[in-house]
């Protein structure tokens, strides 16, 4: 019974992860320009990979493989944003300006 429950939960997580990959793809096509499209890519990058990895970890059960999968997920989550930053910053440095004007904020004094 518990096995079936774990299986169902892992299927649910993986299906949701796949759904987020699809939504990320739709977003990358629908959104208008470079900077907004990065947001769709980050949906695939983070949410989808977290869901899929947790789904696979449930399949692996309580073992060394699960620990390794968790570590791989952490490495992906540490390096993914660094790559996104490199991409976005390269675009900014080479002169692609975001469309809307900059909102300056110091936050607390409002």
């Amino acid at each position, binding site marked *: 019974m518990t096995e079936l429950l774990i299986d169902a939960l892992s299927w649910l997580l993986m299906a949701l992860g796949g759904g987020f990959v699809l*939504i990320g793809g739709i977003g990358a096509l629908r959104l208008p320009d470079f900077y907004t499209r990065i947001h769709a890519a980050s949906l695939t990058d983070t949410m989808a990979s977290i869901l899929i990895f947790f789904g696979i970890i449930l399949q692996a059960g309580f073992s060394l493989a699960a620990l390794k999968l968790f570590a791989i997920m952490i490495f992906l989550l540490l390096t993914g944003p660094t790559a996104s930053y490199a991409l976005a910053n390269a675009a900014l440095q080479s002169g692609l300006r975001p469309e809307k004007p900059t909102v300056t904020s110091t936050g607390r004094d409002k």
Partner: protein
Amino acid sequence: MYRSNQQQGNGKVLHIAALLAVLMVSWVLWSGLYKPLILGLGVFSCLLSTYLATRMGFFRHKFPLRTLLRLPGYWWWLLLEIVKSSIDVARVVLSPSMPISPTVVELKSEGLNDAGKVILGNSITLSPGTVTIDLYKDTFLVHCLTKEGAQALQEQEAQRRVQLLGLN
């Protein structure tokens, strides 16, 4: 500025030894092979990684143990943020009118050292809907998909959370 919290002597050697030990233990756990050749390659790559880390200035700042202990709590908070903002972005992308309002926000982060800035910048990029596009000194330039996302950032919850890690 670097000089003031640079670590010297024994503390640094201890940190290097700790990194080397962690790397070697993880190599053995990961490979699971105990042939002399594989172990030798493992020792070699651990030494190389430690050397590169030292050259990169990895040991220039302290990385206190309390940060390591507080990191899981921070990750849990970040996971909840990621789930919330993912659902927001998915809703925006899927709705027929696609109500985006791209905004660029300047965030100040005072009192964070380099490691804290990296954690903050990467956490902002990690949550869908916000991407760090530039970091100069203490100022982050963040591109947000919606105005609401930008307003949420300006409440500076993330900065407080990173400061609570106690990196300094």
